[in-house]
Each structure stands twice: as C-alpha cells, then as structure tokens.
C-alpha cells in the first residue's frame, strides 16, 4: 500500500521546501522564543485589585488605584474615585515619616502603615506582601519599602492571629497554564493550519498533479506531507516543553498525547484539503478555527451549555494532559478519555488518508458497469463513524439532552439511549446513506435476499435452539464441576470474576425494577428487531462480505466474529460474543440470507431480556 521509498523522497521534498521558505521557520522561531522567555521569566500576578488611599502626612486624602493590567498607581481623591469606579474596597495607606520624597532622597526605606475597614486581616497581609514585593511597580520606588499593618480598629473584624498567606494564585500555576496553552496552540497551528495551507497550496499550484502522475501515490503524498508537519509540530512542542520542564520529555504520556493530537490535526487538515481547492477558502477555515478555539477557551468556562463542546475539543484534551504533567501530579493513564482520544486519533488518520486519496484518485467513468462490492475501506469508514459517534458525538449529544423531562422521568429510556448509541444509532445514520451513495440500491444489496425467507428464519431459530441447548449443557457442567471448588467464599462467583459487571447488573436491577409492560415491549422491540437487523447488516452484510472477497470464507467468519466480539467492549463476555459471531457468520455463509442470522441474534437478545425480567 504505502512504499517507504516514496515516503522518504517526498519527505525530503518537504524538507527542502521548508528550508527554502523562511516565513515558516521565522514563525517557529517566534513561538520558541516566546515560550523560552515565558519559562525563564517571573510571573506578576495582578489579580488583586485594591484601591489605596494614601494619607500623606495626614493632611489630605488621596487614592491610589492599582489597575489590573497596568501596574501603575493612579491618584484620585477618594470621593471622586468612588463615584468614578463604584468600587468599595478601600485601603488607607499612611506614611509614617514626614515625606515620602525625603525618605527616598535620604536613601531610607519609606515606612507606610496600611489599614482598612473593608478588608479582612488576611487580605491586608496579602496586600502588604504584594506591595512589598512589587513596590517598584506599584509605588514606583526602587528601595525596599517598610509596610506595617495598622492595629485593627474597632471589633468588627476579629483580630486573631494573622496567618502567613499562602497565595491562592500560585504564580507557577499561571506559567504552567500559559506553557500548556502555548504548546497546544503551536501544535494546532503547525499540524492543522499550516498543513492545510500547504496541502491546498499544492492543490492550487497543481504541483500535486505533477507528483500524482509520477509513480508516487496520493496516500504517500498525503502521509509524507502530514508526517513532515507532524515532526515539525512535535519538535516545536517538545522544545517548548524542554525549555520549560526538561524532565517532561521522558514521560511516555507526554509523547502519546502530542502524537495523538498531531495525528488528529493531520486528519483534520487532510479532510479539509480533500474538499477545498483554493487558498482563499482555506484561510477562513483555519483562521476561523483558531478564533473559535479562542472563544471556546475564554467563554466556555462561563457558560454551562458550551462546556460539553469545549470538553470534546482535542485542544482541551492536550491542554489538560499537559497541565497534569506540568503540575507534577501523576497522570491517570487509565482515564477513559485518554484512551478514547488515542483511539480516535488512530482511526481518524486512516479515514482521512482514505478520503484524500479517493478525492485525488483517477476518476473512472461514472457509468462504468461494475458490480459494486463491499470493500474493507467501506467497513473501516462505517466503523470509524460508529466509533466517532460513540466516543465523541454521543457523549456530546447526551450531555445536551440529559435534562430533557422524558429522560429524567423514565430512566429506562436513558439506558436504552445509551445502549443504542453504541452501534444502532450510528448505523441507522450511516448505513442507508452509505448504500445510497455507493450502490444507489436498497438494503437487499448487503444480503437481505428473500427467495425463501421463511426457511431462512426457521434455520436461524433452529440454530439458536441448538446453541441454547449447548450453552445450558455447558453451564450445567460448570455448575457441577467448577462451582463446588469455589464454595465457601463470601462473594459470588461473578463478583470474583468481574466486580464491574456486578456493579453494572446492580445498577441495571435498580433501574429495571418496577418497569411497566410498555417499557418491556419497547425494550424488546429495540433489542429484538432493530439492534439485530443493524448489527447483522454491518458485521455479516458488510464486513464478512468484504473479508471474504479478500481472504476467503474462513478468515471472513473468524474476522467478523472477532470484530463483533471486540466491539461489544465487554471483556468478560468476549468469548460468548465471539461464539455468537462465529455461529451467525456460519449461518449467513450457509443460507446466504441475512434474515437467518438476524433471527438467531434476535432470539438470543430476547432470551437474555426474558432471563433479566425473570431474575430481577
């Protein structure tokens, strides 16, 4: 498929082009310098806003205002200031000596006393620290200033022991955040924006046409360019991280995160480049995306409805992992979102490269009479959509709709929804559309031939009876032989084998208890009809056919069964699902009609519902 030789040549071409284009490396240098400067600089926190009344010599009142973003002292009369800003935290700053200026000239440290009715003692201490530490900024003096706290007046505030304030805002926190953000954004800009630009530039200049007509293939062109920019992005990100915290570079999680992110961005860039022909079109996309990111990061923390969107942005993921790493707290690699992200970033490039090479491929006559067949690429595309749906779209949708009355009132429907999201809903969305686009034909194309439907349904049912009989026999044998050895333990066998499963069953029991008849009917209809039809259509109709075309029937049955088992994502039940997959695959091979495995699958699902309803 992909020949390393051409990858290498095209990679070298990218390198030459990069070296010949100073704008690119100036940009990289700029990012690097910015990161380096930030990581060596001290952080000034200007989150504390105090209005300071300077009572100089006790003669007149002035108010010094420390602006948040401009470290300077503006002097107002207190009344005018209060009117102007409508602020209420006023601190009086009384000079203990005669004149501030004289002290400075004499080289003495001016002594000040601060007092306030509107600040707690802790806040006063903090303000004192702040003034002492940054006196050169706030008071515009370069000598150390001696600032004392006035004895608390009155008894409105407890005088208690003044705690030495450990600032809530750690300056390092701010730096960490900045560096994490800088690394994230530089990765986005290089591996998404610049890469999209580079691709579309090649398309617009049509240099890609010349290379496409050489022995190199579009997949190799896409990958070489993508890998070059990934390498560029990774080296910038790594050098930024290395300047700030060199020890991070040895963390595997750091690299996994960056590589996943870069792959994801490369896929996004490839998909953009597949459909966009001109640079004038890709500019608004890239700039718009950066703008969108900025808005999401600034605004999303303030609007709850924006949260799910922000949480599912790849930038958010990279940013949070980097924050974790910089923080020094060990990163929980078992966090499900981490693996979701890695999985998506491994699947998406395959899809993106496929889309790109399909768009770039030699265009065959539209009316060429060829028998359309399911290929592995089709199956991979559909599967990628399902995974994307399950891990990205479904959680997003769910977080939007979970407050709907129907879901809160009937918790059952919530469970159904979750279950459907695994496979049925994405398949409903994608299968008909895919068949329409690819084959311009109906559902029979994937194996619902109906020459003898009744016979096939019956054979499905027969196979199911045999399977059930076998299963019962095996479980009886298990009960008779294995169980006695386990007797005497407190927890049940299931609990020992898989505590999570037990937890799930308990939750399910709580939820299912007290359901009405209609709920069961609905549940049965979905599990007994919709789910089997869709799952069989995909695993047997598409996947098995595609595998058989390529590697023959044996590989097809085993492969589709394995996929069927793995995609149910339940390790304990994997053997059972695998067995089910093998049986339905054989059944389909024998009858050539999908109705037979559908019947088998439906009966199996209904049986498990029946067992559930009896047991719970």
């Amino acid at each position, binding site marked *: 498929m992909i020949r390393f030789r*051409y990858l290498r*040549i095209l990679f070298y071409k990218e390198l*030459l082009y990069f070296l010949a284009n100073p704008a690119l490396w100036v940009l990289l240098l700029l990012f690097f310098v910015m990161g380096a400067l930030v990581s060596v600089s001290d952080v000034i926190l200007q989150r504390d806003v105090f209005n300071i009344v300077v009572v100089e010599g006790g003669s007149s009142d002035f108010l010094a205002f420390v602006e948040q973003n401009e470290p300077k002292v503006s002097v107002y009369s207190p009344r005018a200031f209060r009117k102007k800003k409508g602020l209420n935290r006023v601190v009086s700053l009384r000079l203990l000596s005669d004149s501030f200026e004289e002290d400075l000239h004499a080289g003495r440290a001016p002594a000040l006393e601060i007092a306030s009715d509107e600040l707690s003692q802790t806040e006063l201490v903090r303000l004192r620290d702040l003034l002492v530490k940054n006196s050169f900024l706030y008071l515009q003096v370069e000598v150390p200033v001696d600032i004392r706290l006035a004895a608390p007046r009155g008894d409105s505030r407890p005088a208690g022991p003044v705690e030495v304030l450990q600032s809530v805002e750690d300056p390092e926190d701010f730096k960490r955040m900045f560096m994490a953000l800088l690394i994230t954004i530089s990765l986005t800009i290089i591996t998404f924006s610049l890469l999209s630009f580079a691709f579309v530039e090649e398309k617009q200049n049509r240099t890609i046409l010349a290379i496409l*007509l*050489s*022995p190199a293939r579009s997949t190799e062109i896409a990958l070489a360019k993508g890998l070059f920019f990934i390498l560029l992005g990774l080296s910038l990100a790594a050098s930024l991280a290395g300047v700030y915290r060199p020890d991070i570079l040895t963390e595997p999680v750091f690299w996994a995160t960056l590589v996943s992110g870069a792959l994801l961005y490369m896929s996004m860039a490839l998909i953009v480049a597949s459909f966009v022909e001109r640079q004038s079109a890709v500019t608004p996309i890239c700039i718009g995306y950066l703008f969108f990111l900025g808005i999401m990061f600034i605004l999303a923390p303030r609007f709850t409805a924006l949260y799910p969107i922000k949480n599912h942005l790849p930038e958010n993921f990279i940013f949070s992992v980097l924050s974790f790493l910089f923080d020094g707290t060990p990163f929980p690699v078992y966090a499900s979102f981490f693996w979701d992200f890695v999985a998506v970033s491994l699947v998406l490039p395959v899809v993106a490269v496929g889309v790109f090479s399909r768009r770039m491929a030699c265009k065959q*006559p539209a*009316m*060429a009479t060829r028998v359309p067949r399911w290929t592995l690429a089709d199956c991979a595309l559909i599967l990628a959509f399902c995974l994307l749906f399950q891990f990205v779209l479904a959680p997003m949708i769910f977080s939007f709709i979970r407050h709907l009355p129907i879901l809160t009132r009937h918790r059952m429907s919530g469970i159904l929804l979750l279950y459907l999201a695994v496979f049925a809903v994405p398949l409903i969305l994608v299968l008909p559309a895919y068949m329409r686009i690819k084959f311009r034909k109906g559902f029979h194309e994937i194996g619902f031939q109906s020459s003898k439907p009744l016979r096939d349904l019956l054979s499905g049912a027969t196979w199911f009876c045999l399977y059930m009989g076998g299963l019962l026999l095996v479980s009886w044998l298990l009960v008779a032989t294995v169980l006695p050895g386990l007797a005497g333990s407190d927890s049940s066998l299931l609990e020992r084998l898989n505590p999570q499963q037990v937890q799930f069953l308990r939750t399910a029991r709580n939820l299912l208890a007290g359901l009405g008849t209609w709920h069961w009917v609905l549940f049965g209809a979905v599990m007994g009809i919709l789910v089997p039809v869709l799952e069989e259509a995909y695993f047997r109709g598409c996947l098995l056919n595609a595998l058989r075309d390529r590697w023959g029937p044996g590989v097809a049955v085993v492969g589709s069964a394995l996929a069927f088992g793995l995609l149910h994502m339940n390790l304990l039940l994997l053997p059972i699902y695998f067995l089910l997959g093998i049986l339905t695959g054989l059944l389909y091979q024998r009858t050539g009609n999908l109705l037979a495995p559908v019947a088998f699958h439906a009966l199996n699902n209904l049986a498990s519902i029946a067992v559930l309803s009896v047991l719970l």
Partner: protein
Amino acid sequence: MLHVQGLTVHFGSFVALNHISFRLQPGEIFGFLGPNGAGKTTTLKVLTGQIRPMEGAVFIGEQSLWESFDDLKGRVGYVPDFDNHLEELTAHQNLSLFCRLYRLPKERARQVLETVELLGERDQKVKNFSKGMKKKLTIAREILHLPELIYLDEPTANLDVHSTAVIRSLLKRLAGDGTTVFCTTHNMEEAEELCDRIAFLDQGKIVEIDTPEGFRTRYAEPLVRVVLEGPEGRETRLVRLDQEDDRAFLAERVRLGQIVTIHSDSTSLKDVFLELTGREFH
C-alpha cells in the same frame, strides 16, 4: 499506442466532449486542433485522470487507463498548459526530485536540462524563471523518464520565437526516437508544421482527422496564380486546374515560354476549418 473510444464528458447540461474517438500510432505527432472551449484541455484532463467522463474507454497500449492507472503513470508524460513547479526550489532540485521518484540516475536531470537549454540556469529558483523557461522546464520534467506517450497542452502558447523553435524541434526529435506525441493547439501554423496527423475539434466533437497534406489536397481549390510575360506586358491570371479551357490555356502559354512564375494559392488549415465547420477560426 493510445486508443480513445467514445469519450463523453458533461458539465451539468453542457456537453464538453461528445463521443470522441481516435487512435494514435507509436512515434507519431498527433495534433488536437480547435478553438478555445472546443474540449482540448478537457480531453487531456480525462486522459490524466483528473476528470470523470460519463462514458468511454481509453487504452494505452493494451491496458485500460482506469484499471491500471498506477502502472501507466510512469509511461506517460503530461505537459499542462500551466506551470506547476515547486517555485521555491531550483530547476535542478525540481528535476532531481522527479529523478528520484522515477528511480533514474541523477545524471539524467543534467541531460534533460541540456536538451531544453536550461543548463545555465540550473541553480536558479524557478520563481525567477520567465514563462518560456518554466515551460521548457515542464517539458524537461515530463521527458525525464523517457515516456512512451507525452501529452502537451498548448506547448508553445505565449512563447517567443526562439523558445517555440526549441520546443518544436525537441518534439520532432522525440517523435523520431519513437515517442508518441499528443499535442493540443489552437495555432494552425504550428499544427501544420509539426503534426503528422491532425484532428479538428469543434464544440466537443471531432470534425475530421487527417494529415495536414491530406486536408490541403482535399480542401485546396485547384487554383494557380500565373504571371505571364505577354506581348502586351506583364499580366497576372488565375487558372483553375480542374477546367479544360484553363488547362489548355496554361499548356499553350508554357509551350510559348511566356510564363514568369506560377504560385499555388495554397489553402491553409484555417480555410479548412472554415470549410468544415462553417465558422471562422478565432
């Protein structure tokens, strides 16, 4: 060598190519001649896999274009009507990239640069090249791998006399070495001078295919302009060779030795096009 059968391309309701069929012999220079918008570039885009035709079949040698596109790519050269070089790189860097892609020795890049007279500018960036130099570089790139078939889309449009001459003689040399040349043009003189055979394309259809000589003899008016040195001074007369009287007149004057010169009013391909389509070539 190239066999195109019933190629049809629609853009919406506009029919860009309407059942085009032709066949190229190895080593011939085939001219695809027609006004702007006749479908010349569209044909080339189909042949290089950029545009989806509605129907048709294309064979290069014995292989179908669409079934074995990857195999055929290395045997075909395509000089488009635009320049698509890596402009930031030098001419030599551009060519050596393609040398590597085609698995050719580096020496080959120098050779073709010499062929197209660009050896002196080999280390200049392509973005500083003139239009003619860029075009020559494109041709150099596309003959690098010694293709069996080379498509050229208006190779000499907007070029000066010298560059045009270089390119034409290069194409003749290629054809002499056995390369099949497929060359679109809207320049009648070029087609006449260069091509072994010419297809006239108009509004998406091939009007006629023949050699330039064949067109001329078939569509030429049998008319000669004769300058006579008679007793009453010099005189010019038009003589139709397909008429008995005129032939007798000419024979008589030849016998008397009164003829100064005879010019044939040779028909140009322009006239042929006018004849074929009833429209002025523009």
